[in-house]
């Protein structure tokens, strides 16, 4: 049973710069929020410019049901995200949501949530849902450098947090997959989001340990609602759509 998708103008209540690349956008609905699950995303309308035409898909970072607020964590990579970064409190943002197939809460007790860069975005909501389900989330975040780091206390409130940076400027130096916590047998499964090579590496480790693993993909998308068939993802069950069958897939399914 899927929640009805909405198209709505949400009020920007805050836009916080987290570091030189990331910002956190807080948007408020004047209705009660539909149920939003970890790993789901929204399609945001950005200005039509020389370089932007389609909507931009962005995961839910956090949800505050009482305040009818959603939080998005966004990295500036191009014109679309740059414009989103310029939004100011009081402006409105048109958004289609909630979209996509979420992470699965499965059997087992301890899970490692592995992200690279802004792939951290869906992990907060996921960590919270895991905790609510009585599980133990452990976070492992890879950043390029300290420059991508920001205050992680919201994650720390939910579980242990480990960090790696490629340049060693903070946390362990190296890639997430070489972090010692990945070499322990304490996890019943992995959840991962970030660059494809990283997710593939995490998925291989999961396969070698024969444990559960889900990855959230970032295929380019035109519609976000299953209508255009452009976000195709090859799987062992044939071609799937990242926007409706995903963006979260069990890595066993993926042909990538």
């Amino acid at each position: 049973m899927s929640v009805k998708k909405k198209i709505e103008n949400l009020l920007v209540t805050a836009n916080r710069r987290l570091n030189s690349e990331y910002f956190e956008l807080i948007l408020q609905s004047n209705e009660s929020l539909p149920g939003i699950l970890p790993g789901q995303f929204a399609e945001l309308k950005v200005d039509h410019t020389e370089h932007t035409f389609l909507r931009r898909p962005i995961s839910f970072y956090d949800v505050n049901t009482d305040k009818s607020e959603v939080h998005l964590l966004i990295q500036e990579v191009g014109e679309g995200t740059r414009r989103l970064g310029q939004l100011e409190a009081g402006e409105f943002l048109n958004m289609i949501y909630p979209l996509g197939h979420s992470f699965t809460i499965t059997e087992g007790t301890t899970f490692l949530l592995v992200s690279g860069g802004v792939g951290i975005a869906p992990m907060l909501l996921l960590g919270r849902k895991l905790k609510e389900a009585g599980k133990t989330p452990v976070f492992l975040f890879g950043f390029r450098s300290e420059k991508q780091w920001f205050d992680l206390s919201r994650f720390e409130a939910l579980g242990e947090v480990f960090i790696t940076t490629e340049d060693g400027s903070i946390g362990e130096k190296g890639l997430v997959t070489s972090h010692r916590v990945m070499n322990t047998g304490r996890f019943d499964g992995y959840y991962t989001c970030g660059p494809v090579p990283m997710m593939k590496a995490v998925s291989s480790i999961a396969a070698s340990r024969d444990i559960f693993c889900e990855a959230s993909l970032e295929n380019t998308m035109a519609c976000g609602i299953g209508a255009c068939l452009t976000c195709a993802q090859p799987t062992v069950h044939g071609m799937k759509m990242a926007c409706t069958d995903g963006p979260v897939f069990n890595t066993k399914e993926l042909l990538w």
Partner: protein
Amino acid sequence: MVDMQVNIGKLVLKNPVTTASGCFGYGSEYTDFMDISRLGAVFTKAVTGENREGNPAPRMAETPSGMLNSVGLQNKGVDYFIEHIYPVLRQYDTVFIANVSGSTLDEYVEVAGKINDLSGIPAIELNISCPNVKKGGMVFGTNRQSAAEVVKAVRKVYDKTLIIKLSPNVASIPDFAKTAEGAGADAISLINTLLAMAIDAEKRKPVLATVTGGLSGPAVKPVALRMVWEAYHSVSIPVIGIGGISNATDAIEFLLAGATAIQVGTANFIDPQVSVKILEGLKEYMERHHFSSVSQITGNLEMPEGFERFRPKTF
């Protein structure tokens, strides 16, 4: 009250605003956002003889005021369509027109023949213009003889309203419009996408796995408008206008150029409610300009004096 009804072959549509094949799924993807029964019709995504996986990924590239796609007719085949999709479509109070595609003449005939038996599908749109498949598709749409053959063959097995969707990747639209009409089409629709390409300069690779894909969106509107105008003056069957329509003004431009109805494609991705907004804008325009029937707009374009002395003759 303005009269929005339009006739296309034997088909009567409650209004001229429809949605384009491949850009509106089977309609159900949009029911959360609008009442799809308000549309004149929904053109479904392509139906082929057998299940098709479509093309490899990536299949999409964003371009200035447009996008490329290389979906490649992904669908589960006509039998699956009849068994699983058709029953769902029947639940809506909406006219569904099946977009029929294929790689061979026989495949087109097979699919059209099977859909002919579905009482709830009053028309098909024969897609002889897909630029995204190796065989068939555009091959039929860019060769007059093949186009004539496939239309004639389908006409034999299909007795409801037959719409032929033309490719813009040709030197002369009038040639193909006339070919379709001569071979028995009840209407033509145009344009399908323009064959195009995107490159990632940093990676030094084409963006699409298929290298080339089809360009759609506002970028193509001026080309589409010219082709609809040429087609309108070349044939006497109705013309359905497609290409970059994103608001009521765009839709009206196509009607003025000669379209009897229009299809909204890529714009649905940016605003899933755009088709009903276009319908409302069209009504508002008709009231403001004192048109009592939408058919009064079709081709109602005042020509500049002596323009024929200057422009190249294209029809």
